[in-house]
């Protein structure tokens, strides 16, 4: 798998495991600045990857603030 995907995946995992709250756009900017692309594998976008964690209630997206919060199991 190419480096750009690996960079993206590592950064997303780091955000999920270390940050309690993070801004989605900031995460995307960080990936781009670090030389990654907005995919963690072919056919797999960052948003889909985050959606998967959200579907397992590990993180929750707050559209109004464009942020993810870790460990909240709520349906808004």
């Amino acid at each position, binding site marked *: *798998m*190419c*480096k*750009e*995907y690996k960079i993206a*995946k590592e950064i997303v*995992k780091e955000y*999920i*495991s270390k940050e309690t709250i993070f801004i989605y756009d900031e995460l*995307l900017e960080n990936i*781009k600045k670090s030389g990654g*692309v*907005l*995919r*963690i*594998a*072919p*056919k*797999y*976008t*960052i*948003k889909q*990857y985050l959606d*998967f*964690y959200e*579907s*397992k*209630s*590990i993180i929750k*997206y*707050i*559209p*109004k*603030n*464009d942020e993810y919060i870790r460990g909240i199991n709520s*349906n*808004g």
Partner: protein
Amino acid sequence: MDKLKLIKDQIHGNIIFSKLESELFSSAIFNRLHYILQNSMSYLVYPTNKTSRFIHSVGTCDVASKIYNNSLKNSSKEILQKFLLSKKNIIFSFEISKQLEKDLGLKKYSCIEHYFDKKELKFKELLEPLEKLFGLSFINHCTFNNTIFDDKSLNVVNIILLQSLRFFALLHDYGHLPFSHLTEFAIESLFDKLTDSKESELYKKLKNLFTYEKDIHEIVGEKLTYLTLLNMKENILKNENIDAKLKCGMLIVINIIIEILQELYKAEKSKFYSLYMIISSDLDADRIDYTLRDGLASSLIEKGANTDRILKMFKLDSFESEIYNDSFRFYPAIESLNDIDEFYLDRDKLYKIVFNHHKVKKFDYILEKIITEKLYNESEIDENDSNKSELNNVSDLLSIIFELIEYDTNNITQGNIENFFYKFSQITDYWLLSIIKKDVVKLITCMEPTQSQEFTKELMDELFGGIKKFKSLWKRDFEFFNFLDSLIETMYEIDFFQKRILDESIFADLIDDLNKDISNSKKGIILFDFLNSEFNDWQIQVEKRMREQGFGVLLVKSKFAKPVKELQLIELNTDRKFKYSNISTTKFRRGIMFFIYYSNNVAKSVEQKLLETIMNFIIEKRR
């Protein structure tokens, strides 16, 4: 009065459309969707399943209109008024007068004042331009009596919202490339394959393409939509038969629609998220249309769930939440619960029997592989001449996507957009097949094919010659789970789970959850790995290694219907809300997660070899 315009449809009957939509239907670029199949190669298994994106888009538009209109009719006056007022305020915040001045340029019409009061839009004055743009018969047909519409401005807002929603529905698949997702996947795989050519111009352009967060068809679709609406504005500006005042009003309406569509593309962040959800959510117009249409086209679902009942009982109500920018929702009614259950069962059946049929998955993947290979082979000779108007190579597809993305919307004329649309409209399923089929002839006549050409020939024989070259290791669920059991047993032997995943505390919850899902502590973890980022890596490496050992093998992941998560139903009399997942007793089974196909010319012992290869790959990855 103008003539009512209708399209005959086998699913929804006679579908009404507006004058503005008629303009869209008369364009080369929208007609391209006639030649993009909804279900790629599934017609090789279900020969009548040749639904086009064109009719699916029209059907989605019709269902979306029904959800919108029925919801408004079923809602209380207070809610309806609140909803339209809140959307009116959002439209007020758009900088429409500024945009209008830009559109008109030097030809500033004094009649701008007719529509603005100190830069504040006078909505009720837009009624005449709306009638001219959409057609009075369409408006009469799609609106209903309610005293809140005594306020003409709310009537205008309602009509504009409906037309914007219909455009959003009609254009939701506008950017699909040939064979829908297949070409898109091939482009993504090409980027992965070009990892050693980082200095090439193509690699850099692809990398730039993937700095957009959305899928390629969404990026393409949004830009095409924008250009289409700009072109409509150009047509109005150039039309000498429309008087200046009316022209101004029509431009204002198109500018509002553009702004609403831009807002809708923000999805859950959108101030029009309730409208967005009519097209994309747990129970939406897109899903309803494709389930009915593809189910019938595959001769799988003859009548289907009673969706008419579901649609008739939708209701608009408020949605109390701190986290969204839109505090309204279009709710299906709890009174249609049985029909909703039935609808989901139909959809589940469609995924299981059609979309994830072992042969359909195989044919789709073979075509995807052939396209990837073709793009890769052409990448070295790519001249990248974006000025040529005839598209003769598969790689021309990339040139035109890059051209679209870089298209300068500040410097457009009616002529250059239409030329570009004609050029882009070449990109269809038939265009792609005709190019690929030329290679079939070349391969058949090739006297000394390389190993790679031999393999490609095998793929093409299967796809175009109807010759069975690849067999699936399993066709039924239990066969798949038996294989998974063997794989997991072997993984346990190498202590894979203890060391690789469980030390990452973040995954603990996930593993628990998956364990519950699968009711087998071992399977949950492997499914997590397979269904996520790992699969593509496994796919490429395992296929490559097996081929090195003389085994032609293909690994293909299934695509499942998204589980119903957030859907809430409303009780029509009391407006009480119920979470669908809490009240429905319908159970959906998880099916085959991935398929493995092996070439006919190898022995059945391929299964043992596969297990060994996968294991070796995992062990190496651990190091």
